[in-house]
Structure formats: structure tokens, C-alpha cells
């Protein structure tokens, strides 16, 4: 046998070798193709992680599908917190509708992993997941530590890993994680950590020293999902029209003390400021996008007009000058224009003007009543309440096209829209469920959620 092989070898000519070489090449190629997929993970990206490699994608034409199982409690007393974070994170990630969130009640057959290396990727893949969250909660000595990973189910890589501590409310961990995942995976500014201010009569307190029974309204704030509602004002007076400062640390509102005036509450310091200091009656303050100025309505000159001042009350000046009433200002995102409401044609309509009061231009042409404009900081549009029948509906005016579209359709009266910072959602009030309550909705009119249920709640303002 050996001898025969040797002879064979010696008799091969060079072209025969070439043919065999070709055949060998094909075998080699076949072996390479048959090699396990995992070896195709580009080594370059391991040395230099690129944004592309970290983004979990779904099947073509479909959003990535995420699963958020319960977080793992690493200490016995962390169970409740772990469960809350998982649920809230699922809700937060679902809110922006950037991912298809696999319902949590379908995870029952998938074994829970206690360590990241135990995550059963095959089971998650079978459920259709593209990304899966693995998180842990450790509580020791009153200190909570939350670790979270977002893992790509196909490549089994961790694409997001972080550790968090210090929050007093477990929901804050979930909100923070959701915002950071939206930012990293979709370059989207999430709203999970934003808050909504509103006024409520829920305490049923009445004004002192009035003949008629007059119920007070106080300013409250809540997380964007309606949780964690807290009262901000304690004046036992009428408090209306809250508006957030851009940094989310102050709320300006109309406070009747007893005459209406602009009050700025630094909510995390417990300080109140009164920049207008009783110069006439002052209403509906709104912060400029850079936080340095406040526009408001005042009757100080004998007619409701729009004024602008610095937040400390200096440099107060009047922008409008018309015998009709001008009010309800809202800033353009560039801070150089204001939209406002005037009834100079006989009915309230929305107008735009420059910051010096010039170039007044009416934008609502086919409304019998338009009020409560709010200028989107992300899209070139203004939402407002327009009268439809006996009530109002939320409409969105596209500034470029001049067209308005409606996003609520006569279920109760729907008023007072307020954009979220990323412009993708609106808070508004509706009477559809009894009383007046605050709802949120996507700017496409979908994803409606009621966030208040106690008493009557009005005049929502969404923080940045």
C-alpha cells in the first residue's frame, strides 16, 4: 500500500496537482462555510465596539422584540423591588413603541436565570425575543444596588450593562434604565423620568372667608405614568396653570393670593418666588425654552395682554397691544416666537408673533374656538384645543403645511394639550371617564392612558 501510494505520487504531473489543488480549495471553502455562525462575529468590533454592533435589530420590517423578565433578588428582602423594577421597565420600554414588548405573562415556561451566563437564550429565541433584559437587585444595610444588562439573544452579547444605586423609589431605577436604553438603542430621548404637573381639587378644601363655597385647587406632580403623585402647593388657594422650567426643578403657576399672581416654586428646595410682585393681575406664566424668561398674561394695563420678563421679575415688557383679550402664551422652541390666543376677530383663535410683538399672524382659520396652544419642541407643530360640537378636541396644527389634524374624537371634552419633551406624546384632560382627568396619548392619537383618577384634575404640564 505504501509503495503503491508513493508510486502514484511520483507519477502525478503538475496539471493534475493543480486540479487536485482546486478540489482541495473547494473542500476548504465548504468547511469555512460550514463553520459555526458564531465565528463570524467580527473580531474588529470586539476591539473597537461600534454603535452598529451594539444595536439590537429585529427581523426586517419589524421592531426589535424585547423580553423583560423579573429582576433577580440577590438578597431575600429585595424580592418586591425586583418585581417592581421588571414590571415598570417593561411599561417604560413599551411606552415609546420603539420595541415590540413580549407580554410578561408568556415568560412562564422560561426558566429564570440567576446569573447572566445562565440566561436561556434558546428559550428566549423560541419566544421570538431579539433582546432580553437580565437584572439583579441587591439590598444590604438599606442600600439598594441594581445591575442590569441588555443582551442580544441572537449573538448572546451584552450590549448594555450598568449599575445603579441611591434611588428612594424602585420605579426610578426602571425609569432611568428605560431612558438610557432608548438613548443607546434608538437615539431617542425617552420620557420615563419626566413628570407631569397638574391642578387638582381632590382635597375638597374650601377657601376661607368666602360667602359661597369655593373649592381650592392645588398643584400636584406625578411621574409620566401617573404614579407617585405629590402635592406641590400648600396655599389653600386657587392655584392654576402650572408650567415647568426647562430643567424640571421649578414650576411657575397662577396663584390667587388672593389676587392672581405669578409664583415660581423651586420644588426641590421648598422656595417660592414671586417675580411679578403684585403688579396688577398676572396669569398663565410659561418659561422660555432656555429658562431665562417667563411669558405671562396680565391685566395690569386695563386689558389682558401678553408680557415677558426675566425669571427674577426684571425687564417686564408688554408684547401685545390690542383692545381684545390676548392670553395663553406658549414659546416656540427657538425662543424667538410666541403663539398666543386672541379674540380680536370675535372668537378665540391662535396667533403667532415675534418676541418683540411684531409679525402677528393668525394660524387657526377654520375653528369656531381655539385655545390652549402648546408648541412642540421636536416637530414643527402646535397642538391646541378646538371646539367640536358642545365640547373640545385636541388638534395638531402643522406649521409647514398649515393643516390641522384631530387626535381625539368627541369622547368627552378634551382640552389643554401639553407636549412631552420629545414631542411624541401629549398630556391632556378629558371628561370621558367621569370628572375631568389627565390622560396621555401619542401624537398619532394612539396609546391613550388615563393617569389620574382622584377628584378632578386639570391643566397638565409635561416636564422636559
Amino acid at each position: 500500500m505504501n509503495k503503491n501510494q508513493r508510486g502514484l505520487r511520483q507519477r502525478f504531473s503538475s496539471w493534475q496537482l493543480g486540479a487536485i489543488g482546486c478540489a482541495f480549495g473547494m473542500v476548504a471553502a465548504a468547511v469555512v462555510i460550514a463553520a459555526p455562525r458564531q465565528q463570524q462575529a467580527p473580531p474588529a468590533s470586539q476591539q473597537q465596539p461600534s454603535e452598529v454592533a451594539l444595536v439590537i435589530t429585529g427581523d426586517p420590517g419589524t421592531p426589535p422584540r424585547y423580553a423583560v423578565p423579573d429582576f433577580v433578588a440577590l438578597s431575600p428582602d429585595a424580592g418586591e423591588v425586583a418585581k417592581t423594577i421588571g414590571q415598570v421597565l417593561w411599561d417604560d420600554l413599551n411606552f415609546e413603541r420603539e420595541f415590540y414588548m413580549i407580554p410578561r405573562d408568556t415568560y412562564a415556561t422560561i426558566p429564570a436565570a440567576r446569573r447572566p451566563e445562565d440566561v436561556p437564550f434558546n428559550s428566549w429565541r423560541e419566544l421570538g425575543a431579539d433582546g432580553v433584559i437580565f437584572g439583579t437587585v441587591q439590598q444590604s444595610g438599606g442600600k439598594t444596588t441594581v445591575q442590569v444588562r441588555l443582551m442580544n439573544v441572537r449573538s448572546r452579547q451584552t450590549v448594555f450593562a450598568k449599575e445603579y444605586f441611591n434611588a428612594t423609589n424602585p420605579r426610578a431605577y426602571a425609569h432611568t434604565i428605560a431612558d438610557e436604553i432608548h438613548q443607546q438603542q434608538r437615539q431617542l430621548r425617552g420620557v420615563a423620568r419626566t413628570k407631569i404637573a397638574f391642578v387638582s381639587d381632590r382635597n375638597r378644601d374650601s377657601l376661607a372667608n368666602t360667602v359661597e363655597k369655593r373649592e381650592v385647587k392645588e398643584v400636584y406632580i406625578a411621574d409620566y405614568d401617573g404614579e407617585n403623585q405629590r402635592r406641590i402647593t400648600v396655599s389653600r388657594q386657587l392655584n392654576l396653570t402650572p408650567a415647568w422650567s426647562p430643567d424640571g426643578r421649578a414650576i411657575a403657576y397662577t396663584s390667587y393670593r388672593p389676587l392672581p399672581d405669578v409664583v415660581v416654586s423651586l420644588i426641590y428646595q421648598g422656595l417660592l418666588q414671586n417675580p411679578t410682585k403684585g403688579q396688577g393681575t398676572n396669569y398663565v406664566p410659561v418659561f422660555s425654552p432656555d429658562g431665562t424668561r417667563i411669558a405671562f398674561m396680565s391685566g395690569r394695563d386695563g386689558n389682558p395682554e401678553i408680557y415677558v420678563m426675566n425669571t427674577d421679575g426684571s425687564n417686564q415688557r408688554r408684547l401685545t397691544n390690542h383692545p381684545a383679550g390676548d392670553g395663553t402664551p406658549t414659546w416656540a422652541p427657538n425662543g424667538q416666537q410666541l403663539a398666543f390666543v386672541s379674540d380680536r376677530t370675535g372668537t378665540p383663535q391662535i396667533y403667532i408673533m415675534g418676541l418683540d410683538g411684531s409679525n402677528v399672524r393668525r394660524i387657526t382659520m377654520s375653528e369656531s374656538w381655539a385655545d390652549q396652544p402648546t408648541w412642540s419642541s421636536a416637530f414643527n407643530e402646535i397642538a391646541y384645543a378646538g371646539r367640536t360640537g358642545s365640547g373640545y378636541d385636541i388638534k395638531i396644527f402643522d406649521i409647514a403645511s398649515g393643516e390641522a389634524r384631530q387626535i381625539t374624537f368627541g369622547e368627552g371634552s378634551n382640552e389643554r394639550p401639553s407636549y412631552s419633551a420629545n414631542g411624541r406624546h401629549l398630556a391632556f384632560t378629558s371628561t370621558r371617564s367621569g370628572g375631568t382627568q389627565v390622560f396621555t396619548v401619542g401624537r398619532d392619537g394612539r396609546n391613550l392612558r388615563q393617569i389620574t383618577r382622584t377628584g378632578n384634575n386639570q391643566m397638565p404640564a409635561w416636564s422636559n
Partner: protein
Amino acid sequence: MPKVIASAPNAGGRHQRGRRVSPTLAEINVIPLVDVMLVLLIIFMVAAPMLQRGVEVSLPVASRSQDIASERIFVDVPLSFGKDRRVFLGKESVSLDVLPERVRQIMLNRTDKQVFLRIDGRLNVQHQLDVFDELKAGGVRDVGIVTDAPKQ
């Protein structure tokens, strides 16, 4: 490919022997090359049929059914369903437990909430109903059963 690796030392040994007999020979020793290729050939020949892992479903026969026109969602239920309670979504084997969620995902962007079942005719009615239940839970409105035309 353990066999390929295992053959390498042998090849080296032969090579050394070859050099001992004819140390000045400049040609490549093709014998081990042919060995390797033959082994590979056998491996691929054996493996190739296994790679074609389709699902064998022997469809029930009905003469009055309609041809399926367009692109549809098919769920294959092979005879093995009776044992492992797994069905096939395309080529992918899926447990019955996760079927509703998978079907829901597929139908997310579709208007026709319709799924066609290719169910093995030898499975019993209870098995069929189990699959039906899960499809309904996944939001399927219409379930069609795929049949073979009767042999003439």
C-alpha cells in the same frame, strides 16, 4: 471535524517516511490530500441528507378544498406533536406553549389574521384542538386546514 484532525499525525508520519526514501523529491505529497478529501467527501455525503431537515407531514385528503393562493402563515403539526407537543413555524420548531405569542408577533403587521395548519392526518382531534386553542389565544381569527387533493 474530529476525523480530519485525527488524520493529521498520520499524514505527517507518511511524509517523513516518504522523505526518507526519496529525500530530494520536490513534488507535493498528494496521497494524504486525497485521504483527507475522501474522508471529507464521506462526511458530507452522510451529513447532506440530515441537513434537509424538513418536516414530514402526511396531510389529510379532501376533494372539495380550495387551492391556497397567496403568501400565508403556515403552521406544520407533524405526527411527533403527539409526543413532544412541538409544531413548526416555517422551518423552526416551536413549543406549543409559545405558539400564541409567536403567531401574535407574526400577525402584528398583517390585516388578515389567518393561519393555515398543515396538520398530520394521523393526529387525533384532541391534538388538533389543542393547536386551534393556542392559535386563537394568539389572536388568529381564521384557521385553514391544508389538505392534499385525493390521488386520482
